[in-house]
């Protein structure tokens, strides 16, 4: 996923979230689908919040809270996880 990719999470009003244990159950009111997400996907959704990001800006934002610098391929890994959320329809990618 290129660094300039635009990202936006589904509005929090459209999702119901229940933490079960290691997994979080998420109900998407728009699709009526239920998703079971493991870490770090629920945290990524949380961190995206209700605004639009580029992948690079979002990685910078996360690095303020998490130690992303340890991995050289942090941007690529983050891109993969965001791709998974996009495949579930929980993040829109442009």
């Amino acid at each position, binding site marked *: 996923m290129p660094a300039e990719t635009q990202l936006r999470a589904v509005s929090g009003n459209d999702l119901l979230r229940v933490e*079960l244990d290691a997994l979080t159950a998420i*109900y998407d009111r728009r699709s*009526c689908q239920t998703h*079971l997400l493991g870490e770090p996907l629920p945290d990524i959704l949380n961190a995206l919040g209700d605004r639009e990001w580029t992948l690079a800006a979002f990685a910078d934002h996360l690095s303020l809270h998490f130690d992303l610098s340890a991995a050289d391929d942090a941007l690529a890994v983050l891109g993969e996880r965001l791709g998974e959320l996009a495949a579930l329809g929980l993040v829109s990618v442009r």
Partner: protein
Amino acid sequence: MRHCIRLAVGPVTFRIGSDWARPIAELASLYANYPASADPANATVRLEAARPWRRFIRPAVTIGGDFTIPGALPLPMSMGLLAAEMAMNLQMALGWRRHLLLHASAVERGGRALIMSGVSGSGKSTLAALLGESNAWRLMGDEFTLLEPASGAAYAFPRPVSLKNEAIAEMAARVPANRFGPLLKATPKGDIRHLIPSAEALEVMHEPAMPALILFPRFGGDVAVTRLAPSELFVRLTEASTNYAMLGEAGFTALTRLVTTVPAFAMSYPDSATGMALVQQCWAEAMA
């Protein structure tokens, strides 16, 4: 339809029509002690001849109603009761919206419900029937447990217990003969005989119970009891529910509340006596 009967099982009132008198007479006998319902029917079942002449020549029962399974093979007239049961289950599984439906048996004790889910042959019906015959428990149902989305309460669906194969003799040794339907031999599911719930269970069939314990029994193998994490329970129960997806947000809310508040165990057991002991042990721990 030529022959009709109305049957109330828990909150469901079935209107059952048939091309023949025999299945209706058998149903009337099996459900003779069920409370009558003044409610309008909310599920329709039809037991029909596949072709007009099959009413008379080698009569074979095709199941129909509000919902049908295209291509389902008809059953011989001698299995009309099984056809009726399958048709009633089908209408419930595909049509019922008022409750979250779990493919599970349930028994009640002191206003709390034990729910047992599992595939055919897991022993969930036999264990529920055995518990239902003890003084302490009320049989709520052997096939479906109905969860009310708003309250989370379990409602009974106490149709006659469908005993299969070895379970028939096991229950016949404990229950008077007048509480059994006819023996249906060599059906696609093996030998089947229906056990009519006790009069006490039928009398209070509209009374709900709050779920307190969920078990996944598995008949056969060594004794093993494993606690299930909420996420595994959630996955198992979405698979055990025939209408989870249909209920949308109400189903999600009801099921997540259930799995985060009620303990659940997978339980293997080699025989009914051991199974009963394990159930009582798990129940005692859940109540502690």
